[in-house]
């Protein structure tokens, strides 16, 4: 079943489309269908927010874009996910380079049991990068982009777990950035953070969108409204409404979107 919701946000004309999702359906092995017939255009250099109640298929969509769902019990994927025109779901896709192009930050900050520095160089090491100078540069560049450099520059060799929760999550963001991806997927990245850390993450996201395609699953409607350039409302695996950020939160066209945005169900 293909959803009737508009696949294009209204003012997309001056935007480059980075990711084009066409009729995407994903089912898990327990028989549940997580996404049904989603079509969505995600523009480059903007924050696209996927929001809606739990179980709506937002995380599934994120994890389909970087093929992380390959690790899960997915039995069927239909449709296409085009990244720069290439179908990432094709069996011919090199998932390793795809995942380096499409970075991800998870809900819970998961730092690897290594030093702060090695958490960042880990992704570079995986591709065989051994050059110390370029690694040091990459470490500093990514930490600055994640607004963490000032806090950790003197303690790069300490274990990453010694950082606070908010710092750990910014380290995870930096770890994704160090690979110089084109797209960053964030799955409720601030759900475990205090308001100040949340603010720092949101600030760095709004700066990062100058250079990256950002797809964010926010942990609240408020965060969605604060950060969204484009917002897509998901309910029960369907895309209900997709439009430029301000509009969906102030003047939604679908009654279900309105009910959710106004907090009538969650």
């Amino acid at each position, binding site marked *: 079943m293909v959803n009737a919701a508009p696949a294009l946000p209204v003012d997309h004309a001056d935007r480059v489309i980075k990711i084009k999702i066409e009729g995407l359906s994903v089912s898990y092995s327990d028989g549940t269908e997580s996404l049904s017939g989603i079509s969505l255009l995600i523009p480059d250099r903007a924050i696209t927010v996927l929001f809606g109640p739990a179980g709506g298929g937002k995380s599934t969509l994120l994890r389909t874009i970087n093929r992380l769902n390959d*690790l899960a019990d997915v039995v069927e994927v239909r449709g296409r996910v085009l990244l720069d025109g290439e179908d990432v779901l094709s069996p011919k896709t090199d998932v390793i*380079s795809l*995942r380096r192009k499409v970075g*991800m930050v998870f809900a819970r900050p*998961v730092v690897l*049991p290594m030093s702060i520095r090695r958490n960042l160089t880990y*992704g570079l090491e*995986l*591709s065989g990068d051994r050059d110390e100078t370029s690694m040091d540069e990459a470490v500093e560049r990514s930490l600055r982009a994640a607004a963490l450099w000032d806090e950790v520059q003197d303690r790069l060799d300490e274990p990453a777990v010694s950082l606070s929760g908010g710092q750990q999550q910014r380290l995870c963001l930096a770890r994704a950035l160090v*690979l110089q991806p084109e797209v960053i997927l964030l799955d409720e990245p601030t759900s475990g953070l205090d308001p100040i850390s949340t603010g720092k993450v949101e600030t760095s996201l709004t700066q990062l969108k100058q250079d990256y395609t950002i797809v964010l699953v926010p942990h609240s409607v408020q965060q969605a409204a604060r950060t969204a350039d484009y917002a897509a409302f998901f309910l029960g695996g369907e895309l209900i409404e997709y439009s430029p950020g301000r509009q969906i939160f102030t003047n939604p066209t679908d009654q279900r979107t309105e009910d959710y945005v106004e907090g009538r169900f969650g």
Partner: protein
Amino acid sequence: MTADMNASLGPQKTAGVSASRRKRIERLGFAGMSLAALLTVAPIVLIVVHIYSNGLPAISWEFLTAIPRDGMRAGGILPAIVGTFWLTLGTAVIAVPLGVGAAIYLAEYAADNRWTRTIRIAIINLAGIPSVVYGLFGLGLFVLFLQFGTSLLAGSLTLAIMTIPVIISTAEEALRAVPNSFRVVSVSLGGTQWQTIRKVVLPQALPGILTGVILGLERAAGETAPILFTVAAFFLPRLPHSIFDASMALPYHLFVISTQVPGMPIRIQYGTAVVLLTFVLGMNVIATIIRSRARARRQW
């Protein structure tokens, strides 16, 4: 005192009676359980104290470094010590790669299907087979059929088969204890599954794997039955020169001098027991140190 307070005292009083009764039962339970704990500790303490107090006087430089003389009634036990050392090493060389490899396959790669369930059942059953059966199996397969003869190779292979199930189960457990989120993160950064295992999972699981390996080898080092038909020499007053040589070994030597040689001085028996026990307990201590160090350093 108001009526209100009296009313609330009523139920409290009955609760008080049953509470003191429950406390008595609890105290009785604790006493019983501490007794049980004590009873499990007592044998090991008694064994160690008994063996060491009787055997330590027999330990001398000559005892540890000389070849047995006078039908093993004098001299040292060097060939048995060396034999057990090589057997343990040989067992490790065979069993560790196979056991850890199988554990990685089961924990990281294998899907949960009929095939892997069969493997698991086989492993559990392998661990339950009496050691003398392993000995006879080793005799049939390695000594006779493959014509390795009574040799360190045949003995190590037999002990390895016996040790592998222990290594697989402990290593698999150690691998599964590593949080799955580490794997997901590594893969999301463009790591292959093998890179993820090698760079993240294995280093984290290593202390647990090592502990299992040492405990498995420790058991192999002390076994008599599996080496009885496959490697052990009754009396061989020289050191083995190749893996195809038969050898003396501490557990079997202890059995021989305790039951098969008339007029054997009892201090030599105790001395041999001390050496064997020290070897095995020493490995145990190493395993404990590795485990507690790793636990102190663990970041998850």
